[in-house]
């Protein structure tokens, strides 16, 4: 049975990684096999020779799509956290990947810049880097993502629960955590409905 791919897209500093990190333990608690493919980490491993031109970004995204595909077709739930600024790339991912769930960490550029945890915006403003998405590079907002997490208002945990609920509604994960499922089975057994 195919897994699924939660594709988290958004501006730098919009909260993609934080969302992925909250989501992973929630899925594991449900007995889900899952992996995070974080854009930054994966880039160092598989795309270290690439830069941040439009072509290089597309190529890097293609590689991530390929890994996600290998995992998802073996039943793994994949959480991809990647700026993935182009609609075309995301549409390609949707086409290629099974059970694709697009999640947009929506956040204004001003707030992302004010957060600036990695100092990237500062570097872009001072000209130290010349290819930051949102400043020098375009970010094409999703038009119909499955989930929008407004990270100016919602915490990473609230966002993760929202994604979890969407996965439940789409039938991609069960509605119970492991402990809940045990409790439900016990209840069914007590009522003589199990065997």
């Amino acid at each position, binding site marked *: 049975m195919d897994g699924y791919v939660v594709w988290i897209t958004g501006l730098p500093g919009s909260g993609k990684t934080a969302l992925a990190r909250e989501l992973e333990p929630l899925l594991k608690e449900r007995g889900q096999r899952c992996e995070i493919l974080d854009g930054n980490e994966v880039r160092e491993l598989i795309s270290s020779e690439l830069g941040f031109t439009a072509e290089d970004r597309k190529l890097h995204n293609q590689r991530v799509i390929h890994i996600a595909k290998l995992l998802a077709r073996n039943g793994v739930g994949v959480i991809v956290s990647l700026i993935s600024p182009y609609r075309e790339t995301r549409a390609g991912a949707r086409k290629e990947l099974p059970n694709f769930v697009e999640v947009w960490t929506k956040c204004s550029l001003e707030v992302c810049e004010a957060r600036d945890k990695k100092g990237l915006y500062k570097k872009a403003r001072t000209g130290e880097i010349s290819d930051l998405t949102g400043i020098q590079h375009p970010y094409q907002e999703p038009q119909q993502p499955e989930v929008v997490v407004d990270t100016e208002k919602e915490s990473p945990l609230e966002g993760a629960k929202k994604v979890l609920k969407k996965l*439940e509604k789409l039938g991609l994960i069960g*509605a*119970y955590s492991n402990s809940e499922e045990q409790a*439900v089975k016990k209840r069914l057994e007590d*009522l003589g*409905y199990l065997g």
Partner: protein
Amino acid sequence: MAKVFVLGLDGVPHSFIERSVEKGILPHFRELLGEGSFRRMYSVIPTVSSVAWSTYMTGKNPGKHGIYGFIDRQPGSYEMYIPLATHMRGHTLWEILSQEGKSVVVINVPVTYPPRTVRGILISGFLATKIDKATYPKEVAAQLHRFGYRIDVDPWNARQGKMDDFVADLNTTLTKRFETAFYYMEKEDWDFFQLHVMETDRINHFLWDVTDHQEAFLAYYTKIDAYLGELRSKIDSDTTLIVLSDHGFCGIESEIDLNFWLSVNDYLLFRNPEGDSLNNIDRKSRAYSLPPGRLYVNDQPTGEEIRDKLLSLTDPETGRKIIKNVFRREELYEGEMAKIGPDLVAVPYDGFDLKASFQQKRSMAGRTPIVGMHTYDDAFIYIRQKDITREGPGIVDVMPTILALMDVPTPLDLDGSSCI
């Protein structure tokens, strides 16, 4: 505008209402009977609440909605799953009403967990585990906490013989349920309201015809009757009241383990005598069962052989025949989900509760603390101020009936038809 209020009383038999009204135990019910029509109704096969209410809320046979029991197997594997609202195909009654711009309040109907979106409020019933995850919209949960609302009673008390605790739990849960319903009846501007009482099924399972606890049993039904009276006084003349159950009940003479029978007849092999899951089935097995009476077989000739043998199966103690009928899948189910249904379904005579253990048992027949079992043809439906024109309605006919009452077009793919 035509409004409808539905009160579901899980597993309350038509014959029980008739008997109790005659004895004067249910005075409010008696008054209602004088104001509307009351019929015996048939349920679904297999006769289980999850299947019956799924058929009720979708207006479709299991071959279309895909719910066949409280547990099911992943097709093509030996993995089990618990069918929930996420597995149910098709739109529910309240989803269709919502699409038509009607406002709904739905409380505690089985197989509505996790809650799906409606125009109004939905509080999931059996098998929701936590109030915080059981409501749409989620803000409703806070109110339920304030009420001390309970999703379900704990049958473990009854299993352990702590009947006083069990009965206290039943009563509190019922009180909270009706208080919550009365609150939302007042507060919300609804066109359709459904309140489901699950506890009637529970009390019937554990106290049906139990002489020691007859008083508590009758007191419980009297309490429901009193709530029915209160409900009647709160409903205006523009609102049609429907009261129904999803199946009947009778006493258990013996629990019959079909997997034991299949194993002694060499159709089923267990891998490990200690194991107790579907995965414990040896892959060389030719057939297995899931409760109640669902049979999955490797090939048709084996199925026919099993069918013939089951039809002549008798109780080793009394010699009484156990199986009334064995239906083939195509005789019962039609639709795109028919393929995941059981190959055969055995329907027992009243008194024989069909079980299916995955543990190697020592005998086919046995007893547990459960004293009552479901029956197929003794559910009921009551509609106030309307004539049920058809004899022998089924639970599948209720949804089109409600749509007709509310003047909402009936989808073409429903399996029943209006009985008014």
